[in-house]
């Protein structure tokens, strides 16, 4: 039996096609995935992301604990509310999960981890906490709604209550703020401006209705996936997992090797990989041939060897098929992809493909 978010009935009322995702019954789309995608790029859309796991890390040892647990360095966070994207790694340098950390104070951080990896993450985090003065608390009393798109902020602000609206309106990009039981982050997973709003579960259906009345289009997991792919954002379990290094997943920018004295789980393994060299490249692909790029398709890189698509699909904004792929070092700018048995030409590009409604690559 799949778990249901506080918005489950709202999804059914809206005629959503529901699917199981990470143990949760979630909306795939409400009729047309492509229309939902365009709504987010051109206007405003909302996603139920209540399945994601919120974990509060509190205590005098919170900062030191997270500096050990995470590959990125929470010591970078100086402004209250500031968010940091990071991986947590295995000692071998594989990715346990990727997550967002909001800095509330030196003794209080809020983490948002993936739904499908919830149990593993919580066990892993508890296992690393030995010797640190920290308390980990899962906040399953909170639901989460992401409102995204060029008009998302205006529309959300028009329906938020006074104090929450005041806090939300003042947020810079990648910063969050608390107002009573609510927490609003100016963050997202679409490449558009907007908010991710954590709120008490019981208040969520009414808030969803208010957003809808303000003209915010409900959007499902399908659109969320094509939006994040266009934005060049990784999806855990597809683009990286415990068997692969962040350095081969386009995530080197999230690993803080400086200061050199900071020890974090996986550091030694990553330093060894860097020293050995020959790391595979993580790249964007634009299909120039026919068909649609999909995960696990083989990328034929000539003399450099073979790579693999990690995420692929059709880009509604660009009107072509795009993908993220891991290819051998030394791969040139043109490759072929084995699309259902036929080699099709594709071009390497640097993600993102789309940001703030605009194409970032030449088509």
């Amino acid at each position, binding site marked *: 039996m799949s778990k249901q978010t506080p918005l489950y009935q709202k999804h059914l009322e809206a005629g959503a096609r529901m699917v199981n995702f990470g143990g949760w019954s979630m909306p795939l789309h409400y009729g047309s995935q492509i229309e939902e995608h365009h709504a987010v790029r051109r206007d405003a859309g909302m996603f139920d992301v209540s399945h994601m796991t919120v974990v509060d890390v509190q205590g005098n040892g919170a900062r030191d604990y997270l500096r050990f647990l995470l590959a990125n360095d929470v010591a970078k966070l100086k402004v209250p509310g500031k968010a940091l994207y990071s991986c947590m790694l295995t000692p071998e340098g594989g990715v346990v999960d990727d997550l967002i950390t909001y800095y509330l104070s030196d003794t209080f951080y809020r983490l948002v981890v993936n739904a499908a990896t919830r149990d593993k993450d919580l066990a892993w985090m508890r296992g690393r906490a030995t010797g640190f003065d920290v308390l980990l608390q899962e906040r399953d009393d909170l639901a989460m709604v992401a409102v995204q798109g060029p008009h998302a902020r205006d529309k959300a602000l028009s329906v938020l209550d006074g104090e929450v609206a005041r806090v939300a309106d003042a947020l810079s990009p990648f910063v969050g703020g608390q107002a009573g039981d609510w927490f609003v982050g100016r963050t997202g997973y679409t490449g558009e401006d907007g908010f991710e709003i954590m709120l008490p579960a019981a208040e969520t259906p009414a808030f969803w209705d208010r957003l809808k009345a303000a003209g915010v289009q409900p959007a499902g997991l399908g659109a969320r996936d094509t939006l994040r792919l266009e934005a060049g954002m990784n999806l855990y379990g597809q683009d990286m997992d415990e068997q692969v290094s962040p350095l081969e997943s386009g995530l080197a920018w999230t690993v803080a090797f400086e200061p050199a004295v900071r020890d974090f789980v996986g550091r030694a393994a990553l330093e060894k990989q860097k020293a050995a060299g020959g790391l595979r490249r993580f790249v964007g692909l634009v299909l120039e041939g*026919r068909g*649609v790029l999909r995960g696990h398709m083989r990328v034929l890189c000539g003399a450099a060897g073979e790579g693999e698509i990690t995420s692929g699909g*059709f880009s509604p904004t660009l009107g072509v098929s795009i993908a993220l792929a891991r290819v051998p070092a030394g791969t040139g700018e043109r490759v072929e992809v084995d699309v259902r048995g036929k080699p099709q030409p594709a071009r390497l590009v640097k993600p993102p493909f789309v940001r703030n409604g605009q194409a970032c690559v030449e088509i």
Partner: protein
Amino acid sequence: MSNTPADLRYTKSHEWVRSESDGTVTVGISDHAQELLGDLVFVETPEVGSSQDAGAACAVVESVKAASDVYAPVAGEVVAVNEQLADSPELVNSDPYGEGWLFRLKPADAGAAGGLMDADAYQAMVDAEG
């Protein structure tokens, strides 16, 4: 609730077949099939003039979710394909039995389409799949 016109024949793999007055048959995918697939983004039609065995994979429809083969419901020669789908694959979603048709066959055996499921049998199969 999906739409299943009574004047068409259907296959287990969700193609529909319409017998035309000139003896050819037009083939597409059912409303139920397009609904399951989601928004279509790419359609590959067979070559005009090619001959297809009954049950041969001869076209591909790709949605935002996945690629699916389309099978020739009866043996025959491909006499026309829907060229519009190259630029507008979404026609299969918006009008699966009309502008979203895929290809037209000249059947090797003129009566072959009569052996396919009628609308009631197809609808019963879809309902049984739940």
